[in-house]
């Protein structure tokens, strides 16, 4: 389903994983590895981008977002997403872990050159913001008929 996006091979990424693993072995963080920490350590929110000949889809993994705080803009092929996620602190409770992102964020994505900035749609489902940008007609592959 999402495999093609999720298992992209990246040498740098694998190096990070190896480093993370070595760090954990060194500091003894338990018998099981902590898994991919891209969410906890990377820039917030994590982004996946996929393309087809018709469109480019940008997915932002940002749970619990107030969509009114979002400011999405596109200039030529540069997509900018500004937003914030502010968490409510429970008064009188004692916190053991506070790992969830609580701040403003800003991400800029460079899209392929042939996107049409006039044709952009955004939706927010289950904590994933999806921005779909159509590509220009002229760059879509065309079937050429042989006479």
């Amino acid at each position: 389903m999402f495999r093609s996006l999720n298992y992209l091979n990246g040498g740098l990424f694998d190096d990070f994983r190896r480093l993370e693993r070595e760090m954990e072995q060194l500091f003894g963080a338990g018998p099981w590895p902590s898994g991919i920490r891209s969410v906890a350590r990377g820039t917030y929110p994590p982004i996946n981008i996929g393309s087809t000949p018709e469109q480019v889809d940008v997915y932002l993994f940002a749970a619990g977002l107030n969509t009114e705080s979002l400011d999405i803009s596109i200039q030529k092929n540069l997509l900018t997403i500004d937003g914030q996620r502010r968490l409510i602190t429970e008064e009188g409770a004692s916190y053991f872990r506070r790992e969830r992102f609580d701040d403003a964020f800003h991400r800029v994505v460079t899209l392929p050159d042939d996107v049409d900035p006039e044709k952009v749609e955004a939706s927010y489902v289950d904590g994933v913001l999806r921005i779909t940008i159509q590509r220009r007609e002229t760059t879509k592959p065309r079937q050429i008929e042989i006479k």
Partner: protein
Amino acid sequence: MNENRDVVKQRAGTSPKEREAELSIRMPVDIFEDETGITVLADMPGVSKERLDVQIDNNTLSIQGTTEIAMPDGMEALYADVRSTRYQRSFALSSELDGGKADASLKDGVLALRIPKREEHKARKIEVRTG
């Protein structure tokens, strides 16, 4: 499945359980306690109610979920921060928490789990007698 197998192959020295854990995302959580119980908030974007699994068994709380994201056919990846479709995390609970009365809700990819304390464990003010 080819890509998947390649990742596993690189970890030939690890056990199957380790491999599985490594291929899943350890999602960020907030955990806080008040007088009546403990609340766990977990960010699991892309997970719907149907694909979320929360279990409390033998004092172990286990949270799992898989993402389901609408994608057009034939999509190719240009860039990916998120490389797994699975979230997983588990926590050991202490005995004063009543797992049987836990309550979970999911909104916009945020899981809110409330585990109340057993009645007899709720903090009591202890009178200090004098004399």
